[in-house]
């Protein structure tokens, strides 16, 4: 089970990132739980100053941009 966290207060870019993550999870049948983290104290754990941030199994892999589906697939598989 992979734990995926999307860091961000719910801005349009955060929603777009979530959509891409869900696409990948569905397409490759990844067993994953997707969490949305909106609490700023939590977001600051990874020092993310520009949202959205993407955390996979507690490790921040991208911040301040929406990674391509190709990249997301690489992290989740």
């Amino acid at each position, binding site marked *: 089970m992979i734990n995926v966290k999307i860091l*961000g*207060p719910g*801005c*349009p*870019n955060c929603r777009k990132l979530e959509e891409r993550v869900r696409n990948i999870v569905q397409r490759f049948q990844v067993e994953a739980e997707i969490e949305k983290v909106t609490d*700023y*104290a939590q*977001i*600051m*754990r*990874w*020092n*993310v*100053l*520009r*949202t959205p941030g993407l*955390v996979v199994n*507690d*490790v*921040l*892999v*991208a*911040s*301040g*941009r*929406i990674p*391509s589906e190709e990249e997301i697939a*690489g992290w989740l598989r």
Partner: protein
Amino acid sequence: MEQTVPSTGRQQRTWRVWALVIGASIIWLIAYNLVQPLAQVITFRVLGLQEGSHLGEAVAFFLYDVPKILLLLSGMIFLISTIRSFFSPERTRELLGGKREGIGNILAAGLGVLTPFCSCSAVPLFIGFVEAGIPLGVTFSFLIAAPMVNEVALVMLLGMFGWQIALLYLIAGMSIAILAGMIIGRLHLERYVEDFVWQIKGGDGATVLTRLTWKQRFTIAWENTREIVGKVWLYVVIGIAVGAGIHGYVPEDALAGILGREAWWSVPAAVILGVPLYSNAAGIIPVVQALMAKGAALGTVLAFMMAVVALSLPEMIILRRVLKPRLIAIFIGTVTTGIVVVGYLFNLIVN
């Protein structure tokens, strides 16, 4: 993942991306140079309008300016976004750490212009800066400069007024950010920051961020360009249409009495009018250019534009989460005063 891609394959892909960008640049250059002759031919040959007539001049102006400004916007936003992909708020925070006020404010304003920033990130950015021990005033210099020197406004000014005025706007915006930040710093307003901000201690999460490849940089720049141009193009078209109408039909100097340099109250009036008008910067500049041609003063017009882009209600609502109302009021007051002063200064200097 990285290791499975053979290095020659990666190189080839990088080559393809560069070829695409260079090819697109060449097409852009050709198109940009064809706009004016094409507008002339369409207006006066195809549509058969009289050269020198009101209608003919207005149509020629519209057909020339719309594609010119849209091309300029697309090209410049792509270029700016590519440059900005080398800057990040995290790096900016490192650069600002341990800087004294003064130098810190100047650096923060400069980095505010260069660092990609969206108002939805204003809160994490604010918390991150404060948590790293960056003085409040320096943080504000960054937060003021980032939206004030707006890339769409900068490119539109470049296209419609020339580089001198675009540069004036850049310098004025940065000066306001530096001074307003220094004033806020001197006032020692730390107690008007929401208390929870001071309690946040970050940084124990693990990160594996990789350096962006050129392909990723260009992809980010392209997505950004599409998003921005997609959002503003209609305003640009409508703005230029209204501007063309004013150019063709409003008599010279009709506005000198209301918006000219002699009308002292026009600067504050323009700023008060501009503050609540957010997000239509792209449509406002063409109208404002036409107004200037009819006698409105440069300072008044620039002050109006800065008020439109610098202070927005959505950003204030977002910042309310970390700032108490008193500090928000001081923030708005300082920036507004700065814009009014800049307006008067330009009216005084530029004839």
